[in-house]
């Protein structure tokens, strides 16, 4: 009972949605619970989740980062170029592994650099994040276009592709847990901890709550902004590496809908674009809910055109639910107090 009271409303609400969706889907389409499908859903959450995490942290600071997918693709493309030039048919396994590790480092560095550029423009010039990242979204994608002229980089080492497709704990029919999901979970858990349990995380959320107060609290707001966007860039870079491994290629325009999906996921998880509110750890539940919905609709052969609109309905539905629950809660509390007030006589004598 105490534990239930500790969990916040949003978590409970999302958990209920997840369970209902899962049960309904499993009931209508038994294949929904097949190990192949579970595996496929885990894979998909592993990739889309990273971008949701990026948006979640910038949202909490009352910002937005529209450039994440451009950063991811740029990272993929630069790694692709490195693979193409550094490796050939006769490269030894050790060489390949070395270059891959190098690329991971370079990739994350590039992601951080891109994040730094966003932070620079936002912190130093005070330009609104939505404008800055809209511009850098174009710039980073533009650099990718200039490098590739719109073509894909395809010389991705086999071992990276295999790694991205590997899983652990596979038993018999069950394919286990994809490495990609584990990687996502690791990043997701660490960022949840960073945001909700470390000094930086508190500063980040306070920045979203009221940056003027932070200013008077002698908190280095610029540093908070830099760190936030660098973190977002780094996570996006990991996303880019994963995409490269998963698709064996990198291209400037992969994942055109990824940012929109990420926004949706965050909002459903109760992370407000107005800053300072929401819990990163609720993301996993909203990712699951949206995944169940998307895969379920595919299985039910529901037209993708309606599917998109149902996301909108789900969002509105969950927010209206919350509104009604809160209203009811307050009404009940007030009624209770009224009763007790009526029963106890006035404590003060009138003069």
């Amino acid at each position, binding site marked *: 009972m105490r534990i239930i009271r500790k969990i916040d409303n949003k978590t409970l609400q999302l958990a209920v949605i997840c369970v209902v969706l899962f049960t309904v889907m499993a009931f209508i*389409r038994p*294949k929904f619970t*097949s190990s*192949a*499908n579970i*595996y*496929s*859903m885990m*894979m*998909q959450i592993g*990739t889309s989740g990273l971008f949701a995490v990026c948006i979640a942290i910038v949202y909490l600071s009352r910002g937005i980062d529209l450039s994440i997918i451009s950063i991811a693709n740029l990272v993929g493309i630069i790694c692709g170029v490195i693979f193409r030039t550094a490796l050939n048919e006769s490269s030894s396994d050790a060489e390949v592994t070395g270059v891959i590790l190098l690329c991971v480092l370079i990739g994350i560095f590039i992601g951080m650099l891109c994040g730094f550029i966003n932070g620079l423009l936002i912190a130093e010039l005070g330009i609104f994040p939505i404008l800055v990242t809209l511009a850098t979204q174009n710039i980073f994608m533009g650099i990718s*276009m200039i490098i590739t*002229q*719109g*073509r*894909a980089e*395809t010389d991705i080492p086999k071992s990276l*592709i295999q790694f991205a*497709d590997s899983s652990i704990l596979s038993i018999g029919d069950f394919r286990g847990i994809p490495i990609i999901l584990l990687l996502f979970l690791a990043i997701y858990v660490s960022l949840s901890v960073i945001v909700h349990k470390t000094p930086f995380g508190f500063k980040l959320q306070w920045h979203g709550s009221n940056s003027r107060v932070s200013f008077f609290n002698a908190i280095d707001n610029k540093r908070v902004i830099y760190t936030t966007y660098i973190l977002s860039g780094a996570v996006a870079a990991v996303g880019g590496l994963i*995409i490269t491994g*998963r*698709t*064996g*290629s990198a*291209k*400037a*325009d*992969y*994942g*055109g*809908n*990824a940012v929109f999906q990420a926004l949706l996921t965050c909002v459903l998880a109760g992370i407000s674009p107005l800053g300072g509110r929401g819990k990163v750890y609720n993301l996993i539940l909203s990712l699951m809910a949206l995944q169940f919905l*998307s*895969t379920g609709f*595919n*299985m039910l*052969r529901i*037209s*993708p*055109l309606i599917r*998109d609109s149902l996301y909108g309905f789900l969002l509105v539905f969950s927010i209206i639910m919350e509104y009604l629950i809160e209203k009811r809660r307050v009404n009940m509390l007030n009624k209770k107090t009224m009763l007790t007030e009526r029963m106890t006589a006035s404590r003060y004598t009138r003069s």
Partner: protein
Amino acid sequence: ENDPFIQDMVIAHLPKTVGGAWFTRMYQGFGQYSGMSGSETFQIGPSTGDAAAHNANVQDLVAQGVDAICVVPYAPEQIDAELGKARAEGTIVISNEGTKLQNIDYDLEAFDNTKFGQGAAELLGEGMGGKGSIIVFVGSLGSTAHMSWANSIVDTIQAKYPDIQVANKDGVFIETGNNAANSYEKAKEALKAYPEATGIFCPSATDTPSIARAIQEAGLTNQITYVAVGLPNAVRTYVKSGDLDVVVCWDPADVGLAMCKLAAAAKSGYEVKTGDDLGVFGFNNVIVEGKVVMGSEWRVLTAAEIDDFNY
């Protein structure tokens, strides 16, 4: 009942995007096949062009265990790995506009892309009287089919018509984005940037009408020879008004039906050979090169013929 091209199976159609005229028409071919074979066919796909969404769709399809996926990839390089996993699970994969794909059973092409490019180049060259300069558009710089047609056009023009220049010189084609509004703006801009142009080619059926509109507005109907890929219904007005001189097309429904038949062949274990007849217009005498199965027909329609076609 022993026809290798007719099998009862579950086939998913995965177009670049759902909803557009082209792929809606293509899906009608699947409907026809359903009627012939009793197969269950359905369409899924993203509502906007996005390779990431495509990959997710392939995963979902494999997870629910369909027999065959007939895919028109948005970005061939980026779906190949995912298709490999599908095949590893025993799913048949047939592609269209995906000659470079490795992980497929067959790729179906309405024709040889290079030959198609040559054909278009000749239409342009003749229309322009062997001189002038051309602007070449592509739907997106990443589209394999568009790029190979465009490249083939440039090669042919340079080889056969020495007096025709390519206006967008740097060898980078102008991207119209598979979006009518955007292509209209791009076309207007290009017409001003290259006022010397007397020939235009557009491979993106979505963008063909709005480019014609831009030509009409600029008053260049008679100066410019405009050759483009399009659906007859979509471009009829402009073909009749002369803004679009020649429309090159094939019926997407035929491609859809032929894809289903290849899927059936793959299921029955029949190996498609050069000379086979798929029983679909344009695919009566296919050429097979590796996994690529090519038809040989495209229609060249001008104002005289356009009214004979309704799709």
